[in-house]
């Protein structure tokens, strides 16, 4: 079962990379773009047939390693 963990900087934490991309998109004439935020996805192949249990495990991995809760939030979802 494939679980995707998405990790984003917490609201309020400055995201210089997002700002830089936002700026670059404006330079490229994508005028419609407002705020840009950048995060990370971690796709995990988990040997588990129950989606709920897979999510529990993914959440544990996120708390243990995949996200730094001082600055980041995360969410896990089954994708396959």
């Amino acid at each position, binding site marked *: 079962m494939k679980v995707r963990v998405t990790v984003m900087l917490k609201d309020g934490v*400055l995201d*210089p*990379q997002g700002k830089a991309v936002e700026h670059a998109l404006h330079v490229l004439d994508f005028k419609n773009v407002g705020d840009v935020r950048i995060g990370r996805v971690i796709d995990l192949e988990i040997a588990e047939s129950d989606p709920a249990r897979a999510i529990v495990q993914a959440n544990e991995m996120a708390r243990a*390693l995949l996200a730094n809760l*001082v*600055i980041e939030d995360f969410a896990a979802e089954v994708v396959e």
Partner: protein
Amino acid sequence: MKAGIVVFPGTNRERDMAIALRSVTGVAPRMIWHREIELPDLDLVVLPGGFSYGDYLRCGAMAAHAPIMPAIRRFAQAGGHILGVCNGFQILTEAQLLPGALLRNASLRFLSQDCFLRVERNDTAFTRHWKRHDVFRTPMAHGDGNYIADQETVRMLEGDGRVAFRYVAPDGRLDAADVTLNPNGSMGAIAGIFSENLRICGMMPHPEDLVDPLMGGEDGKPLFTGLVEALVG
């Protein structure tokens, strides 16, 4: 002084640190492999710079879970002295032995250059050979040195005098908004901090690379001579 340097896969400034420590103690420090689970009898544990685990995921994140870390935690709880430089600082924050986090440099570029640090207090083992507000030059070389913490943490660090070093101009002028003075964009131009008991110090720049006139100066040396004096007594 009995010093030990922890080596993780991808650590690359352990030799620099060993040279600096040897130059002040006369003996080679112990190298401690990340898979050890006990520390030898030590006065100082150093987490050196480098790219532990390639800096993949987040700098220091994987090293913070290495097998040696529980022993380092116990060492800290027992009041041991720990110095974390660059990647070592990142590891200490990821392990929550120090508060806050280090984000990508505001310029989004790796920065390898000299910077100037102001010593914020000199009543610690790490800073006793400087005077308060002394300014010294030191190389920095990192992509993720942008110190950040929530407001409450910053207030606590400032209030309790736990800021060790700040990036400043050569004359000591502080301006966190000026990228020429605060090159990575750190909050409050913070370059290094202490733990509550002042026995753990994390900092981004590399004083260990400036301890020899041949390499351009000895500006970083007081950190090491001070530690020897404090820890050997």
